[in-house]
Protein backbone atom coordinates (compact mmCIF):
# COMPACT_ATOMS: atom_id res chain seq x y z
CA UNK A 1 0.00 0.00 0.00
CA UNK A 2 1.42 3.42 -0.88
CA UNK A 3 2.14 5.96 1.85
CA UNK A 4 1.60 9.65 1.31
CA UNK A 5 2.03 12.74 3.44
CA UNK A 6 0.45 15.95 2.18
CA UNK A 7 1.56 19.28 3.60
CA UNK A 8 2.27 17.92 7.08
CA UNK A 9 3.31 20.48 9.72
CA UNK A 10 3.90 19.99 13.42
CA UNK A 11 5.31 22.08 16.25
CA UNK A 12 6.18 21.31 19.84
CA UNK A 13 5.27 24.53 21.57
CA UNK A 14 6.92 27.31 19.61
CA UNK A 15 9.43 24.94 18.05
CA UNK A 16 8.46 23.70 14.58
CA UNK A 17 9.64 20.14 13.86
CA UNK A 18 7.89 19.58 10.53
CA UNK A 19 7.34 22.38 8.03
CA UNK A 20 4.89 21.58 5.24
CA UNK A 21 6.31 18.16 4.40
CA UNK A 22 4.94 16.17 1.47
CA UNK A 23 6.22 12.79 0.37
CA UNK A 24 5.10 9.63 -1.34
CA UNK A 25 6.31 6.06 -0.97
CA UNK A 26 5.13 3.80 -3.76
CA UNK A 27 3.48 0.46 -3.04
CA UNK A 28 6.13 -2.13 -2.25
CA UNK A 29 8.93 0.41 -2.02
CA UNK A 30 11.69 0.58 0.54
CA UNK A 31 12.47 4.19 1.31
CA UNK A 32 14.87 5.65 3.84
CA UNK A 33 14.19 8.86 5.73
CA UNK A 34 17.67 10.19 6.34
CA UNK A 35 18.78 13.21 8.28
CA UNK A 36 20.73 14.48 11.26
CA UNK A 37 19.17 14.20 14.69
CA UNK A 38 16.54 16.89 15.22
CA UNK A 39 15.72 17.07 11.51
CA UNK A 40 12.16 15.86 12.10
CA UNK A 41 12.43 12.40 10.55
CA UNK A 42 11.20 10.51 13.61
CA UNK A 43 8.36 12.99 14.12
CA UNK A 44 7.32 12.48 10.50
CA UNK A 45 7.35 8.71 10.94
CA UNK A 46 5.25 8.99 14.10
CA UNK A 47 2.76 11.23 12.30
CA UNK A 48 2.50 8.69 9.48
CA UNK A 49 1.94 5.90 12.03
CA UNK A 50 -0.73 7.87 13.86
CA UNK A 51 1.26 7.99 17.10
CA UNK A 52 1.38 11.75 16.78
CA UNK A 53 -1.23 14.12 15.40
CA UNK A 54 0.01 16.74 12.91
CA UNK A 55 -1.01 20.39 13.33
CA UNK A 56 -1.79 20.56 9.62
CA UNK A 57 -1.75 18.26 6.62
CA UNK A 58 -3.04 14.82 5.72
CA UNK A 59 -1.80 11.24 5.73
CA UNK A 60 -2.99 9.03 2.89
CA UNK A 61 -2.53 5.24 2.72
CA UNK A 62 -3.25 3.61 -0.63
CA UNK A 63 -5.31 6.59 -1.77
CA UNK A 64 -7.43 6.60 1.41
CA UNK A 65 -7.20 9.50 3.85
CA UNK A 66 -6.34 7.99 7.26
CA UNK A 67 -5.63 11.30 9.02
CA UNK A 68 -8.51 10.75 11.42
CA UNK A 69 -7.60 7.13 12.21
CA UNK A 70 -5.68 6.30 15.38
CA UNK A 71 -2.59 4.13 15.30
CA UNK A 72 -4.62 0.99 16.07
CA UNK A 73 -6.74 1.42 12.92
CA UNK A 74 -4.03 2.28 10.41
CA UNK A 75 -2.64 -1.20 9.94
CA UNK A 76 0.98 -0.18 10.38
CA UNK A 77 3.79 -2.28 11.72
CA UNK A 78 5.94 -0.01 13.84
CA UNK A 79 9.42 -0.97 15.00
CA UNK A 80 11.04 1.12 17.72
CA UNK A 81 14.72 1.90 18.17
CA UNK A 82 14.71 0.38 21.66
CA UNK A 83 12.54 -2.57 20.57
CA UNK A 84 9.69 -1.84 23.04
CA UNK A 85 9.15 -5.56 23.60
CA UNK A 86 6.68 -6.57 26.29
CA UNK A 87 9.12 -7.60 28.98
CA UNK A 88 6.62 -9.59 31.02
CA UNK A 89 5.90 -11.86 28.05
CA UNK A 90 7.91 -14.56 26.35
CA UNK A 91 9.15 -14.13 22.81
CA UNK A 92 6.25 -16.29 21.64
CA UNK A 93 3.66 -14.18 23.45
CA UNK A 94 5.24 -10.98 22.17
CA UNK A 95 4.80 -12.12 18.58
CA UNK A 96 1.33 -13.49 19.31
CA UNK A 97 0.14 -10.26 20.95
CA UNK A 98 -1.22 -8.59 17.82
CA UNK A 99 -3.22 -11.74 17.00
CA UNK A 100 -4.59 -12.19 20.53
CA UNK A 101 -5.99 -8.65 20.75
CA UNK A 102 -7.91 -8.95 17.49
CA UNK A 103 -11.70 -8.75 17.79
CA UNK A 104 -13.21 -12.18 18.46
CA UNK A 105 -14.71 -12.43 14.97
CA UNK A 106 -11.34 -12.24 13.20
CA UNK A 107 -9.12 -13.74 15.91
CA UNK A 108 -7.35 -16.89 14.68
CA UNK A 109 -7.85 -20.16 16.54
CA UNK A 110 -5.15 -21.10 19.07
CA UNK A 111 -3.79 -23.72 16.68
CA UNK A 112 -3.58 -21.34 13.73
CA UNK A 113 -2.06 -18.69 15.98
CA UNK A 114 0.68 -21.11 17.10
CA UNK A 115 1.44 -22.07 13.52
CA UNK A 116 1.63 -18.43 12.45
CA UNK A 117 3.88 -17.37 15.34
CA UNK A 118 6.28 -20.26 14.73
CA UNK A 119 6.32 -19.42 11.04
CA UNK A 120 7.28 -15.82 11.86
CA UNK A 121 9.89 -16.91 14.39
CA UNK A 122 11.34 -19.11 11.65
CA UNK A 123 11.41 -16.12 9.32
CA UNK A 124 13.48 -14.13 11.82
CA UNK A 125 15.53 -17.24 12.72
CA UNK A 126 14.54 -17.30 16.37
CA UNK A 127 12.43 -20.45 16.61
CA UNK A 128 14.55 -21.87 19.40
CA UNK A 129 14.01 -18.73 21.51
CA UNK A 130 10.21 -18.92 21.68
CA UNK A 131 10.09 -19.44 25.45
CA UNK A 132 12.76 -16.94 26.41
CA UNK A 133 12.07 -13.52 27.85
CA UNK A 134 13.27 -10.40 26.02
CA UNK A 135 15.88 -9.72 28.73
CA UNK A 136 17.53 -13.03 27.86
CA UNK A 137 18.16 -12.02 24.24
CA UNK A 138 20.87 -9.96 22.58
CA UNK A 139 20.03 -6.61 21.02
CA UNK A 140 20.00 -8.01 17.49
CA UNK A 141 17.69 -10.85 18.55
CA UNK A 142 15.35 -8.45 20.32
CA UNK A 143 15.03 -6.31 17.22
CA UNK A 144 14.22 -9.40 15.15
CA UNK A 145 11.50 -10.30 17.66
CA UNK A 146 10.16 -6.75 17.34
CA UNK A 147 10.04 -7.19 13.57
CA UNK A 148 8.29 -10.55 13.80
CA UNK A 149 5.78 -9.01 16.21
CA UNK A 150 5.08 -6.15 13.79
CA UNK A 151 4.73 -8.52 10.84
CA UNK A 152 2.31 -10.82 12.71
CA UNK A 153 -0.65 -8.55 12.06
CA UNK A 154 0.21 -8.43 8.34
CA UNK A 155 0.58 -4.66 8.22
CA UNK A 156 0.01 -2.82 4.98
CA UNK A 157 3.05 -0.67 5.70
CA UNK A 158 6.12 -1.16 7.86
CA UNK A 159 7.57 1.83 9.65
CA UNK A 160 10.96 1.45 11.32
CA UNK A 161 12.38 4.11 13.62
CA UNK A 162 16.17 3.81 13.75
CA UNK A 163 15.74 0.05 14.10
CA UNK A 164 19.46 -0.71 14.22
CA UNK A 165 20.52 2.44 16.05
CA UNK A 166 21.26 0.70 19.34
CA UNK A 167 23.27 -2.18 17.84
CA UNK A 168 26.98 -2.51 17.17
CA UNK A 169 28.38 -2.10 13.68
CA UNK A 170 28.73 -5.75 12.78
CA UNK A 171 25.21 -6.73 13.87
CA UNK A 172 23.84 -3.65 12.10
CA UNK A 173 25.39 -4.80 8.82
CA UNK A 174 23.97 -8.31 9.15
CA UNK A 175 20.48 -7.10 10.04
CA UNK A 176 20.56 -4.57 7.25
CA UNK A 177 21.15 -7.06 4.49
CA UNK A 178 18.74 -9.47 6.19
CA UNK A 179 16.04 -6.77 6.19
CA UNK A 180 16.67 -6.07 2.52
CA UNK A 181 16.26 -9.77 1.69
CA UNK A 182 13.12 -9.94 3.81
CA UNK A 183 11.67 -6.96 1.99
CA UNK A 184 12.41 -8.50 -1.39
CA UNK A 185 10.43 -11.56 -0.23
CA UNK A 186 7.45 -9.83 1.40
CA UNK A 187 7.19 -6.59 -0.60
CA UNK A 188 5.65 -4.70 2.31
CA UNK A 189 5.87 -0.96 1.72
CA UNK A 190 8.61 0.09 4.11
CA UNK A 191 9.81 3.42 5.43
CA UNK A 192 12.92 3.35 7.58
CA UNK A 193 14.27 6.26 9.59
CA UNK A 194 18.02 6.45 9.99
CA UNK A 195 20.76 8.96 10.61
CA UNK A 196 23.33 6.62 9.08
CA UNK A 197 23.96 7.52 5.45
CA UNK A 198 25.62 4.21 4.70
CA UNK A 199 22.55 2.38 5.98
CA UNK A 200 20.22 4.53 3.88
CA UNK A 201 22.27 4.23 0.71
CA UNK A 202 22.73 0.48 1.03
CA UNK A 203 19.20 -0.43 2.03
CA UNK A 204 16.80 1.83 0.22
CA UNK A 205 15.50 2.17 -3.34
CA UNK A 206 14.94 5.80 -2.62
CA UNK A 207 16.33 8.15 0.00
CA UNK A 208 14.54 11.17 1.41
CA UNK A 209 16.97 13.53 3.06
CA UNK A 210 15.53 15.77 5.74
CA UNK A 211 16.95 18.87 7.37
CA UNK A 212 15.35 21.20 9.89
CA UNK A 213 11.81 19.91 9.39
CA UNK A 214 11.93 20.03 5.60
CA UNK A 215 12.72 17.61 2.83
CA UNK A 216 16.04 18.72 1.40
CA UNK A 217 16.19 16.29 -1.53
CA UNK A 218 14.80 12.93 -2.53
CA UNK A 219 15.88 10.42 -5.13
CA UNK A 220 17.80 7.22 -5.68
CA UNK A 221 21.00 6.82 -3.68
CA UNK A 222 23.01 7.43 -6.85
CA UNK A 223 21.13 10.64 -7.67
CA UNK A 224 21.68 12.00 -4.20
CA UNK A 225 25.32 11.08 -4.16
CA UNK A 226 26.15 12.22 -7.69
CA UNK A 227 24.01 15.34 -7.84
CA UNK A 228 23.41 16.79 -4.39
CA UNK A 229 20.96 19.67 -4.80
CA UNK A 230 22.20 21.75 -1.92
CA UNK A 231 25.37 22.25 0.09
CA UNK A 232 23.64 20.48 2.99
CA UNK A 233 23.07 17.32 0.94
CA UNK A 234 26.62 17.39 -0.36
CA UNK A 235 27.96 17.78 3.17
CA UNK A 236 25.70 15.14 4.67
CA UNK A 237 26.42 12.37 2.16
CA UNK A 238 29.97 11.15 2.10
CA UNK A 239 33.03 12.58 3.73
CA UNK A 240 33.34 16.15 2.57
CA UNK A 241 35.64 19.16 2.90
CA UNK A 242 33.83 22.45 2.62
CA UNK A 243 35.73 25.58 1.66
CA UNK A 244 34.30 29.03 1.36
CA UNK A 245 35.56 32.10 -0.40
CA UNK A 246 35.17 34.72 -3.12
CA UNK A 247 35.68 33.76 -6.78
CA UNK A 248 38.60 35.62 -8.34
CA UNK A 249 38.79 37.25 -11.76
CA UNK A 250 40.08 34.13 -13.51
CA UNK A 251 37.23 32.02 -12.14
CA UNK A 252 39.30 30.29 -9.46
CA UNK A 253 38.91 30.19 -5.72
CA UNK A 254 42.00 31.02 -3.69
CA UNK A 255 42.38 29.34 -0.35
CA UNK A 256 45.72 30.40 1.08
CA UNK A 257 48.26 29.32 -1.52
CA UNK A 258 45.90 26.74 -2.94
CA UNK A 259 44.01 27.78 -6.06
CA UNK A 260 40.92 25.75 -6.90
CA UNK A 261 39.79 26.35 -10.51
CA UNK A 262 35.99 26.47 -10.68
CA UNK A 263 34.07 25.66 -13.84
CA UNK A 264 31.24 28.12 -13.91
CA UNK A 265 31.31 30.58 -11.08
CA UNK A 266 30.81 34.30 -11.56
CA UNK A 267 33.90 36.27 -10.52
CA UNK A 268 33.32 38.22 -7.35
CA UNK A 269 30.59 35.94 -5.96
CA UNK A 270 30.83 34.22 -2.56
CA UNK A 271 30.72 30.45 -2.92
CA UNK A 272 30.81 27.29 -0.85
CA UNK A 273 32.59 24.41 -2.48
CA UNK A 274 32.06 20.83 -1.38
CA UNK A 275 34.97 18.51 -2.09
CA UNK A 276 34.65 14.83 -1.24
CA UNK A 277 37.72 13.39 0.43
CA UNK A 278 37.74 10.66 -2.22
CA UNK A 279 37.61 13.16 -5.09
CA UNK A 280 40.88 14.81 -4.16
CA UNK A 281 44.33 13.86 -5.33
CA UNK A 282 47.68 14.64 -3.75
CA UNK A 283 50.78 15.15 -5.91
CA UNK A 284 54.31 15.50 -4.62
CA UNK A 285 55.66 18.89 -5.67
CA UNK A 286 58.79 21.01 -5.50
CA UNK A 287 59.05 24.04 -3.27
CA UNK A 288 57.53 26.67 -5.54
CA UNK A 289 54.71 24.56 -6.95
CA UNK A 290 53.68 23.05 -3.66
CA UNK A 291 50.81 24.64 -1.76
CA UNK A 292 50.35 22.36 1.25
CA UNK A 293 52.17 20.17 3.74
CA UNK A 294 51.05 16.74 4.90
CA UNK A 295 50.37 17.24 8.60
CA UNK A 296 48.94 13.86 9.53
CA UNK A 297 48.61 10.39 8.08
CA UNK A 298 46.07 7.90 9.41
CA UNK A 299 45.66 4.34 8.21
CA UNK A 300 41.90 3.65 8.02
CA UNK A 301 42.29 0.15 6.62
CA UNK A 302 40.71 0.21 3.17
CA UNK A 303 42.02 3.69 2.59
CA UNK A 304 44.59 6.07 3.94
CA UNK A 305 43.55 9.46 5.28
CA UNK A 306 45.94 12.35 4.74
CA UNK A 307 45.52 15.74 6.30
CA UNK A 308 47.11 18.40 4.15
CA UNK A 309 47.51 21.84 5.69
CA UNK A 310 47.32 24.50 2.99
CA UNK A 311 49.91 27.29 3.37
CA UNK A 312 48.01 30.15 4.95
CA UNK A 313 44.77 28.18 4.74
CA UNK A 314 42.73 25.36 6.22
CA UNK A 315 43.53 21.68 6.64
CA UNK A 316 41.96 19.43 4.01
CA UNK A 317 41.27 15.70 4.41
CA UNK A 318 42.09 13.45 1.47
CA UNK A 319 41.35 9.72 1.19
CA UNK A 320 43.60 7.72 -1.09
CA UNK A 321 43.51 4.04 -1.94
CA UNK A 322 45.81 1.93 0.18
CA UNK A 323 48.54 1.47 -2.42
CA UNK A 324 49.08 5.23 -2.73
CA UNK A 325 50.91 5.43 0.57
CA UNK A 326 54.34 5.08 -1.04
CA UNK A 327 56.05 8.45 -0.95
CA UNK A 328 53.68 10.60 1.05
CA UNK A 329 54.83 10.99 4.60
CA UNK A 330 54.28 13.54 7.25
CA UNK A 331 55.99 16.78 6.25
CA UNK A 332 55.93 16.06 2.50
CA UNK A 333 55.16 19.07 0.27
CA UNK A 334 52.24 18.53 -2.10
CA UNK A 335 49.72 20.11 -4.44
CA UNK A 336 46.02 19.23 -4.15
CA UNK A 337 43.92 18.51 -7.18
CA UNK A 338 40.14 18.36 -7.15
CA UNK A 339 38.66 15.93 -9.67
CA UNK A 340 35.04 16.69 -8.88
CA UNK A 341 33.71 19.78 -7.23
CA UNK A 342 30.29 21.07 -6.30
CA UNK A 343 29.78 24.79 -6.03
CA UNK A 344 26.94 26.30 -4.03
CA UNK A 345 26.16 29.92 -3.24
CA UNK A 346 27.48 30.79 0.20
Amino acid at each position, binding site marked *: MSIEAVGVSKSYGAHPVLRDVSLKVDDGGLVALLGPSGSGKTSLLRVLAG*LEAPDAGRVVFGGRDVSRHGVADRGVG*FVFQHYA*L*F*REMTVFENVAFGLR*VKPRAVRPSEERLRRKVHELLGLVQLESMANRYPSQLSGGQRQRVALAR*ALAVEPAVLLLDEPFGALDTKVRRQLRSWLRTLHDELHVTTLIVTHDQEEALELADRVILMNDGRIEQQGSPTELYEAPATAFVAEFLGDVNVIEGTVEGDGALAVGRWRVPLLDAAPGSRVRVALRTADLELLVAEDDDACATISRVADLGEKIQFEATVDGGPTVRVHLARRALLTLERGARVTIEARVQRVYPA
Partner: protein
Amino acid sequence: MAHRTRERPRGPVAWAVLGVSVVTVAALLLLPLVVVFVEAFREGPARWVSAVSSPDTVSALKLTGLVLALVVPFHLVFGVAAAWLLTRYDFPGKGIVLTLVDLPFAVSPVVSGLLFVLLFGARGFFGPWLIDHGIRIVYAVPGIVLATLFVTLPFVTRELVPLLDAQGREEEEAAASLGAGAMHILFRVTLPRIKWGVLYGGVLCAARAAGEFGAVSVVSGQLRGETVTLPLHVEVRYDEYAFVDAFAVATLLAFSGLATLGFKAWLEERARRAMRTTGESG
Protein backbone atom coordinates in the same frame (compact mmCIF):
# COMPACT_ATOMS: atom_id res chain seq x y z
CA MET B 1 22.16 -2.35 40.12
CA ALA B 2 25.84 -1.93 40.84
CA HIS B 3 27.37 -4.12 43.46
CA ARG B 4 28.46 -2.22 46.49
CA THR B 5 30.92 -3.57 48.96
CA ARG B 6 29.67 -3.16 52.49
CA GLU B 7 32.18 -2.45 55.21
CA ARG B 8 32.07 -2.68 58.93
CA PRO B 9 31.95 0.71 60.65
CA ARG B 10 35.45 2.00 61.20
CA GLY B 11 36.66 4.69 63.61
CA PRO B 12 34.99 6.38 66.58
CA VAL B 13 32.70 8.63 64.50
CA ALA B 14 31.18 5.69 62.64
CA TRP B 15 30.58 3.84 65.93
CA ALA B 16 29.08 6.98 67.49
CA VAL B 17 26.64 7.42 64.58
CA LEU B 18 25.73 3.76 64.80
CA GLY B 19 25.20 4.04 68.56
CA VAL B 20 22.88 7.04 68.23
CA SER B 21 20.85 5.21 65.59
CA VAL B 22 20.49 2.07 67.69
CA VAL B 23 19.46 4.02 70.80
CA THR B 24 16.95 6.07 68.78
CA VAL B 25 15.37 3.02 67.18
CA ALA B 26 15.20 1.25 70.54
CA ALA B 27 13.75 4.21 72.42
CA LEU B 28 11.28 5.40 69.81
CA LEU B 29 10.19 2.20 68.11
CA LEU B 30 10.94 -0.93 70.08
CA LEU B 31 10.24 0.35 73.60
CA PRO B 32 6.66 1.52 72.90
CA LEU B 33 5.92 -1.76 71.11
CA VAL B 34 7.18 -3.74 74.11
CA VAL B 35 5.19 -1.55 76.51
CA VAL B 36 2.00 -2.16 74.49
CA PHE B 37 2.38 -5.92 74.78
CA VAL B 38 3.47 -5.88 78.43
CA GLU B 39 0.50 -3.72 79.47
CA ALA B 40 -1.95 -5.75 77.36
CA PHE B 41 -0.97 -9.02 79.00
CA ARG B 42 -0.50 -7.59 82.50
CA GLU B 43 -3.54 -9.47 83.78
CA GLY B 44 -2.90 -12.62 81.80
CA PRO B 45 -3.96 -14.01 78.41
CA ALA B 46 -7.55 -14.70 79.48
CA ARG B 47 -8.07 -11.05 80.25
CA TRP B 48 -6.59 -10.16 76.86
CA VAL B 49 -8.98 -12.52 75.07
CA SER B 50 -11.99 -11.11 76.87
CA ALA B 51 -10.87 -7.56 76.04
CA VAL B 52 -10.46 -8.17 72.32
CA SER B 53 -13.68 -10.16 72.06
CA SER B 54 -15.93 -7.69 73.85
CA PRO B 55 -18.91 -6.51 71.75
CA ASP B 56 -17.49 -2.96 71.50
CA THR B 57 -14.14 -4.21 70.23
CA VAL B 58 -15.79 -6.51 67.72
CA SER B 59 -17.96 -3.69 66.41
CA ALA B 60 -14.91 -1.42 66.14
CA LEU B 61 -13.08 -4.18 64.27
CA LYS B 62 -16.02 -4.55 61.91
CA LEU B 63 -16.17 -0.82 61.24
CA THR B 64 -12.44 -0.63 60.53
CA GLY B 65 -12.84 -3.64 58.23
CA LEU B 66 -15.69 -1.92 56.41
CA VAL B 67 -13.65 1.26 55.98
CA LEU B 68 -10.74 -0.76 54.58
CA ALA B 69 -13.02 -2.68 52.23
CA LEU B 70 -14.33 0.57 50.78
CA VAL B 71 -11.22 2.74 50.82
CA VAL B 72 -8.52 0.40 49.51
CA PRO B 73 -10.28 -0.80 46.31
CA PHE B 74 -11.37 2.76 45.59
CA HIS B 75 -7.80 4.02 45.83
CA LEU B 76 -6.39 1.15 43.78
CA VAL B 77 -8.67 2.12 40.89
CA PHE B 78 -8.38 5.86 41.46
CA GLY B 79 -4.58 5.71 41.92
CA VAL B 80 -3.97 3.78 38.70
CA ALA B 81 -6.31 6.06 36.77
CA ALA B 82 -4.82 9.26 38.21
CA ALA B 83 -1.22 8.12 37.70
CA TRP B 84 -2.04 7.07 34.14
CA LEU B 85 -3.64 10.43 33.42
CA LEU B 86 -0.77 12.36 34.97
CA THR B 87 1.98 10.48 33.14
CA ARG B 88 0.38 9.79 29.77
CA TYR B 89 -1.41 13.02 28.95
CA ASP B 90 -0.53 16.67 28.91
CA PHE B 91 -3.18 19.08 30.02
CA PRO B 92 -3.25 22.56 31.48
CA GLY B 93 -3.05 22.59 35.26
CA LYS B 94 -1.20 19.25 35.46
CA GLY B 95 1.29 20.65 37.96
CA ILE B 96 -1.53 21.86 40.17
CA VAL B 97 -3.19 18.44 40.13
CA LEU B 98 0.13 16.79 41.09
CA THR B 99 0.43 19.17 44.02
CA LEU B 100 -3.20 18.66 45.06
CA VAL B 101 -2.70 14.90 45.20
CA ASP B 102 -0.09 15.57 47.90
CA LEU B 103 -2.35 17.90 49.87
CA PRO B 104 -3.48 15.28 52.41
CA PHE B 105 0.19 14.70 53.32
CA ALA B 106 0.72 18.39 53.95
CA VAL B 107 -2.45 19.13 55.90
CA SER B 108 -2.88 17.95 59.49
CA PRO B 109 -5.40 15.08 59.63
CA VAL B 110 -7.40 16.99 62.25
CA VAL B 111 -7.81 19.85 59.80
CA SER B 112 -8.89 17.35 57.12
CA GLY B 113 -11.54 16.03 59.48
CA LEU B 114 -12.66 19.51 60.36
CA LEU B 115 -13.03 20.24 56.66
CA PHE B 116 -15.70 17.56 56.39
CA VAL B 117 -17.49 18.86 59.48
CA LEU B 118 -17.50 22.34 57.93
CA LEU B 119 -18.86 20.96 54.68
CA PHE B 120 -21.38 18.37 55.87
CA GLY B 121 -21.95 19.19 59.56
CA ALA B 122 -25.29 20.52 60.85
CA ARG B 123 -24.09 24.10 60.53
CA GLY B 124 -21.87 23.30 57.57
CA PHE B 125 -22.15 24.33 53.95
CA PHE B 126 -24.34 21.43 52.83
CA GLY B 127 -25.67 20.79 56.36
CA PRO B 128 -29.22 22.18 56.03
CA TRP B 129 -29.79 20.43 52.71
CA LEU B 130 -28.55 17.11 54.12
CA ILE B 131 -30.75 17.44 57.20
CA ASP B 132 -33.76 18.21 54.99
CA HIS B 133 -33.15 15.02 53.05
CA GLY B 134 -32.39 12.92 56.10
CA ILE B 135 -28.83 12.12 55.07
CA ARG B 136 -26.21 11.80 57.82
CA ILE B 137 -22.56 12.13 56.88
CA VAL B 138 -20.78 13.68 59.83
CA TYR B 139 -20.97 11.66 63.09
CA ALA B 140 -21.88 8.66 60.94
CA VAL B 141 -20.10 5.98 58.91
CA PRO B 142 -20.08 7.94 55.58
CA GLY B 143 -18.09 10.72 57.25
CA ILE B 144 -15.51 8.25 58.55
CA VAL B 145 -15.14 6.71 55.10
CA LEU B 146 -14.84 10.13 53.44
CA ALA B 147 -12.25 11.35 55.94
CA THR B 148 -10.22 8.14 55.51
CA LEU B 149 -10.47 8.40 51.71
CA PHE B 150 -9.09 11.91 51.93
CA VAL B 151 -6.08 11.21 54.13
CA THR B 152 -5.08 8.10 52.13
CA LEU B 153 -5.44 9.76 48.73
CA PRO B 154 -1.75 10.15 47.82
CA PHE B 155 -0.42 6.63 48.51
CA VAL B 156 -1.16 4.69 45.33
CA THR B 157 -0.86 7.65 42.95
CA ARG B 158 2.44 8.77 44.47
CA GLU B 159 3.81 5.25 44.19
CA LEU B 160 2.83 4.87 40.53
CA VAL B 161 3.63 8.28 39.01
CA PRO B 162 7.43 7.87 39.13
CA LEU B 163 7.10 4.22 38.10
CA LEU B 164 5.03 5.00 35.00
CA ASP B 165 7.22 7.98 34.19
CA ALA B 166 10.36 5.86 34.25
CA GLN B 167 8.85 3.14 32.07
CA GLY B 168 7.89 5.51 29.28
CA ARG B 169 5.14 4.79 26.81
CA GLU B 170 6.88 2.93 24.01
CA GLU B 171 5.48 -0.47 24.93
CA GLU B 172 2.01 1.02 25.09
CA GLU B 173 2.53 2.61 21.68
CA ALA B 174 3.76 -0.71 20.33
CA ALA B 175 0.64 -2.43 21.67
CA ALA B 176 -1.58 0.25 20.12
CA SER B 177 0.15 -0.11 16.75
CA LEU B 178 -0.61 -3.85 16.93
CA GLY B 179 -4.30 -3.00 17.17
CA ALA B 180 -4.80 -3.24 20.94
CA GLY B 181 -7.52 -1.08 22.49
CA ALA B 182 -7.17 0.87 25.73
CA MET B 183 -8.41 -2.03 27.92
CA HIS B 184 -6.03 -4.52 26.34
CA ILE B 185 -3.15 -2.11 26.75
CA LEU B 186 -4.02 -1.44 30.38
CA PHE B 187 -4.53 -5.05 31.44
CA ARG B 188 -1.94 -6.81 29.28
CA VAL B 189 0.88 -4.31 29.00
CA THR B 190 0.75 -1.57 31.63
CA LEU B 191 -0.66 -3.31 34.73
CA PRO B 192 1.59 -6.37 34.57
CA ARG B 193 4.57 -4.03 34.66
CA ILE B 194 3.39 -1.98 37.62
CA LYS B 195 1.53 -4.65 39.59
CA TRP B 196 4.06 -4.68 42.45
CA GLY B 197 3.88 -0.92 42.69
CA VAL B 198 0.07 -1.05 42.78
CA LEU B 199 0.13 -3.65 45.56
CA TYR B 200 2.78 -1.74 47.49
CA GLY B 201 0.78 1.49 47.31
CA GLY B 202 -2.32 -0.48 48.32
CA VAL B 203 -0.57 -1.89 51.40
CA LEU B 204 0.60 1.54 52.52
CA CYS B 205 -2.90 2.89 51.91
CA ALA B 206 -4.47 0.07 53.93
CA ALA B 207 -2.04 0.55 56.82
CA ARG B 208 -2.84 4.24 57.01
CA ALA B 209 -6.59 3.66 56.61
CA ALA B 210 -6.62 1.12 59.46
CA GLY B 211 -4.58 3.33 61.75
CA GLU B 212 -6.04 6.76 60.96
CA PHE B 213 -6.96 8.60 64.15
CA GLY B 214 -6.97 12.38 63.77
CA ALA B 215 -9.31 12.95 60.85
CA VAL B 216 -11.64 10.13 61.84
CA SER B 217 -11.79 11.30 65.45
CA VAL B 218 -13.11 14.71 64.36
CA VAL B 219 -15.95 13.35 62.18
CA SER B 220 -16.77 10.28 64.27
CA GLY B 221 -18.69 11.72 67.21
CA GLN B 222 -17.67 8.46 68.96
CA LEU B 223 -21.06 6.81 69.11
CA ARG B 224 -20.29 3.49 70.75
CA GLY B 225 -20.84 0.48 68.55
CA GLU B 226 -21.63 2.78 65.64
CA THR B 227 -18.87 5.20 64.70
CA VAL B 228 -15.91 3.96 66.74
CA THR B 229 -13.05 2.51 64.71
CA LEU B 230 -10.27 0.44 66.23
CA PRO B 231 -7.87 3.37 66.92
CA LEU B 232 -10.75 5.39 68.40
CA HIS B 233 -11.76 2.45 70.54
CA VAL B 234 -8.26 2.43 72.08
CA GLU B 235 -8.74 6.03 73.11
CA VAL B 236 -12.28 5.46 74.38
CA ARG B 237 -11.18 2.62 76.67
CA TYR B 238 -8.11 4.54 77.81
CA ASP B 239 -10.22 7.55 78.75
CA GLU B 240 -12.42 5.22 80.75
CA TYR B 241 -9.35 4.08 82.71
CA ALA B 242 -9.71 0.57 81.25
CA PHE B 243 -5.97 0.48 80.57
CA VAL B 244 -5.67 -3.26 79.98
CA ASP B 245 -8.54 -3.14 77.47
CA ALA B 246 -6.99 -0.17 75.69
CA PHE B 247 -3.61 -1.89 75.38
CA ALA B 248 -5.20 -5.18 74.35
CA VAL B 249 -6.97 -3.44 71.47
CA ALA B 250 -3.71 -1.65 70.68
CA THR B 251 -2.02 -5.02 70.26
CA LEU B 252 -4.47 -5.75 67.44
CA LEU B 253 -3.30 -2.60 65.66
CA ALA B 254 0.31 -3.51 66.43
CA PHE B 255 -0.20 -6.95 64.92
CA SER B 256 -1.72 -5.47 61.79
CA GLY B 257 1.18 -3.03 61.61
CA LEU B 258 3.74 -5.82 61.91
CA ALA B 259 1.89 -7.88 59.31
CA THR B 260 1.92 -4.88 56.99
CA LEU B 261 5.66 -4.46 57.47
CA GLY B 262 6.25 -8.13 56.68
CA PHE B 263 4.03 -8.00 53.61
CA LYS B 264 5.71 -4.80 52.46
CA ALA B 265 9.17 -6.35 52.80
CA TRP B 266 8.00 -9.38 50.84
CA LEU B 267 6.56 -7.13 48.11
CA GLU B 268 9.78 -5.16 47.85
CA GLU B 269 11.75 -8.38 47.48
CA ARG B 270 9.35 -9.62 44.80
CA ALA B 271 9.55 -6.33 42.92
CA ARG B 272 13.34 -6.46 43.03
CA ARG B 273 13.35 -10.02 41.76
CA ALA B 274 10.90 -9.15 38.98
CA MET B 275 13.18 -6.29 37.96
CA ARG B 276 16.17 -8.64 37.84
CA THR B 277 14.57 -11.36 35.75
CA THR B 278 12.83 -9.14 33.25
CA GLY B 279 15.72 -6.76 32.78
CA GLU B 280 15.68 -3.04 32.62
CA SER B 281 15.25 -2.12 28.98
CA GLY B 282 13.35 -5.26 27.81
